[in-house]
């Protein structure tokens, strides 16, 4: 075991001050990626700042036409929330399908977004729903937030505080999970709402979550699974690994997109 400092602040300002002081400090939002990485010795931050006691980062609220979820809200809380079920029911399904019960009770929406794993589920939902990510410094539109593999617009000492979703007319998510990890081999989120039709794909792209604009155009004309017939993404931009090659993933994107539309229409 190697030594590192551990702090458990109770406000966002305290947490931000700790990040500013200790260079290389990492935030612990749920620890479902950070802790395994530290156990493997692939990261050894000198300071871990645990956000579990920061009450202002929790909670799920509906305000007029938006659903607002605190950054430290766990996947299980989103999955079981009556407020989410009555506003964006598809988001309950997204949270319900992440990892396993352990991951869902520890992992948080803010942690998932800050990590931006290219096979995580939330980035697709947040991008398709055109959500706004609030931090201790500013607000960031989903389109500007995700910047490729594990890369976001966040600065080193910036903390996600909440995510605000415009409530859509329709939203659906379908994923083909890796049978071992439950990460998305391919996951597609489809939303129809004030921002028009948006389709976001996770797990498939070489550079993380992306929008499938051809599919958006087709679904704007007709929001039905059949509208996607014959529309596929470019396999040369898809990821290849031991679990599936690029052509397979490209094929799955269309299949999952059709299922997502079906789920959204139901």
């Amino acid at each position, binding site marked *: 075991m190697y030594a590192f400092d551990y702090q458990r602040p109770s406000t966002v300002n305290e947490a931000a001050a700790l990040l500013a002081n200790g260079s*290389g400090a*990492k935030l612990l939002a749920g620890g479902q*990626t*950070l802790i*395994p*990485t530290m156990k*493997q*010795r*692939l*990261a*050894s*931050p000198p300071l871990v700042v645990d956000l579990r006691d920061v009450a202002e980062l929790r909670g799920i609220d509906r305000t007029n036409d938006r659903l607002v979820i605190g950054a430290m809200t766990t996947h299980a809380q989103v999955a079981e929330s009556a407020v989410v079920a009555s506003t964006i029911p598809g988001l309950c399904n997204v949270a319900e399908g992440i990892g396993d019960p352990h991951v869902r009770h520890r992992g948080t929406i803010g942690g998932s977004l800050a*990590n*931006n*794993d*290219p*096979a995580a589920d939330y980035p697709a939902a947040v991008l398709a729903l055109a959500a706004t990510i609030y931090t201790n410094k500013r607000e960031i539109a989903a389109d500007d937030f995700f910047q*490729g*593999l*594990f890369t976001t617009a966040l600065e080193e000492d910036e903390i996600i505080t909440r995510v605000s979703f415009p409530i859509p007319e329709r939203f659906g998510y379908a994923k083909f999970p*890796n049978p071992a*990890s439950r*990460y998305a081999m391919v996951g597609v989120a489809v939303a129809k709402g004030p921002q028009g039709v948006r389709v976001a794909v996770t797990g498939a792209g*070489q*550079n993380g979550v992306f929008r499938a604009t051809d599919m958006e155009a087709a679904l704007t004309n007709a929001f039905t699974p059949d509208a996607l017939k014959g529309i596929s993404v470019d396999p040369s931009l898809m*990821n*290849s*690994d*031991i*679990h599936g*090659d*690029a052509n397979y993933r490209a094929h799955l994107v269309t299949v999952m997109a059709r299922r997502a539309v079906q789920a959204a229409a139901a």
Partner: protein
Amino acid sequence: MAVNMSGEVILAADRERVWAMLNDPEVLKVCIPGCETFELDGENTFQAVARVKIGPVNARFKGKVTLSDIDAPNSYKISGEGEGGIAGFAKGGATVRLEPAEDGGTRLIYDVEANVGGKIAQLGSRLINSVAKKNADTFFAKFAEAVGGGTVVATNVDEAGTAAGEGS
């Protein structure tokens, strides 16, 4: 697990200049993603330290870089072997070829064969290809900038290479 990659870049400088820059430790240091030091350590050998920072992973690799099969200003082979302590190891090489291109530019053609092992390969098996491609693209974008302009024509990651590799 094995990673095979190849690609082409058109650079806006003549072959002699590109060759000189490919042999300049200062230029390589600036272009290699995460490179902290890159120092001459003997004839055609260098000591390098690079930090691999991908998402939660933050590990430092120390290694030796060797240039061989030198045919100035046409081609060389650059090989490296890095140790990241408990994080794992990476070793591999790239054949780099230079050909004159239109308008006094230079076409750079590379072929990479690398092996990644240890925990970093285990944890990263679903991501190594994407990360390798991203790093190659970053390197050549910076290199093109250093020589005064250029365009990446193609970056191919060979799927057969990974299918043959060990999984986790």
